[in-house]
């Protein structure tokens, strides 16, 4: 078991289906999958395309830009790791490439989060092996307008 340095939240299981996703995140890159046969994009990563059952898969790099599709400010969660960080923002963001992912919005006050708000990926190295893609309001001025 990898050293988690007291990190208490659940960690993902890294396996044949998902390794490419987690390895890219460890390099601070965000990728999603696309079927080489039918072209269907998919998230979360899996071995077979749910549309045509092909296992011919390519990884497509995402820009990291997204908008908040929905969110909730969590004030109560007894689970270890989360209860120490209340309140936190659980969100589903839509990547500019059209894929919706669950995440946390960080880097701003929870009360400042809005549906439709532009955000960009920030890589959170939670353990030596695992990096989680979180999202925050963009730092670059041109994204503010």
């Amino acid at each position: 078991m990898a050293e988690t340095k007291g990190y208490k939240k659940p960690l993902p299981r890294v396996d044949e289906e998902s390794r490419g996703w987690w390895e890219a995140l460890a390099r601070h890159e965000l990728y999603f999958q696309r079927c080489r046969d039918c072209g269907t994009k998919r998230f979360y990563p899996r071995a077979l395309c749910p549309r045509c059952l092909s296992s011919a898969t390519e990884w497509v790099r995402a820009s990291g830009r997204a908008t908040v599709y929905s969110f909730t400010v969590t004030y109560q969660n007894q689970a270890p790791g989360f209860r120490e960080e209340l309140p936190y923002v659980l969100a589903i963001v839509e990547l500019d490439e059209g894929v919706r992912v669950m995440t946390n919005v960080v880097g701003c006050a929870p009360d400042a989060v809005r549906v439709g708000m532009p955000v960009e990926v920030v890589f959170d190295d939670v353990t030596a092996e695992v990096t989680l893609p979180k999202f925050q309001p963009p730092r670059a001025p041109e994204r503010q307008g």
Partner: protein
Amino acid sequence: MTELRAPAGGIWGKTAVVGAYEHPTRFAPDKTAFQLHAESARGALEDAGLTVQDVDGFFTSGVGPIGILSLAGHLNLRPSYVDSQAIGGSSFVSHSFHAAAAIAAGLCNVALVTYGSTAASERFAIGTGTGGFVVEPPDSFEAPFGPTIVGSYALVARRHMHEYGTTGEQLAEIAVTMRRHAGLNPRAKYREPITVEDVLASRMISSPLHLLDCCVISDGGGALVLTSVERARDLRRPPVVILGAAEALRHAEIGTRDLLDVAARQSGPLALARAGVRHADIDLALIYDSYTITVLATLEALGFCAAGEGGAFCADGRIGLGGALPVNPDGGGLSSNHPGMRGIFLVVEATRQLRDECGPRQVKDATLALVHGTGGMLGQRHSGVTLILGRV
């Protein structure tokens, strides 16, 4: 009123609920869940005028992956048809559907459905203490971010507010209505009236859902007995016939999920069509109310109002007793009881309402009820099961 007859052929209209029982307890620290199952089974069989020896079909859920084996042993059942459908709180609505199919097909004669849970006395934090485990592949992409169960429903509520302008006040009206109903139910866990202001002033659990937008946590149990309409005619209670049913699943798809595409959108129209009835024919609805948003989103998805109109639909008295579509006259999960998987109580209350035995909370002249159970997490993976029940 449309004639209460299922389309010719098929399985509809051939099976009846003949025994229904809701355990009176809301807190039972010295009982096991199995004891609540057993006491509920006895209650439903007594209600039906049948014995445990008559049971040859057994349906249960919430007892662990192969817990039906232990529970069948506890009750000393030797069923020839078993179903441990596990799709969350709606499982028992699904059991009723599957029992109707099995009985109509001649696969069993008397089906027993049981439920029991001691969630409250075990201090199990149903809505805010789980969701943090990586068990199945999708969990790896969700659990690390802390999705509680209430949080999952809150994502739906927030998106609904964004798309349609639904307000916290409109959601609160649902909780207020359920509490008013609970005031007429002596067994309800909470019976003191509340106001919209009370709901909005209660502490935020996961925005935009406040404490009083959330179901209670109780202990409890319930059971149902079903048999053929033919046999039901010789039994103690007026038969409540299963006229139609359907079920559906929704999930995050391939990262394309529409949070407002609720499973009821698929199961509702199909169940109504199978029963050969229309929305306007329905006298009351039993809608799984894990949270206020569950009721609003389900009524829209079932087609009782258009998408986006659920807030106004629920806020003008229509879903209260005396309204056009009374919902959950027992006070529902929001005020009466919620031991974790509430689906069985929807069918119990529908049955008792259609038998005209609910006293002060009775819906007058109720002949046709729609039941809809939601299981799992509305904003993530969930099931929806719709059942149409009628008094014939």
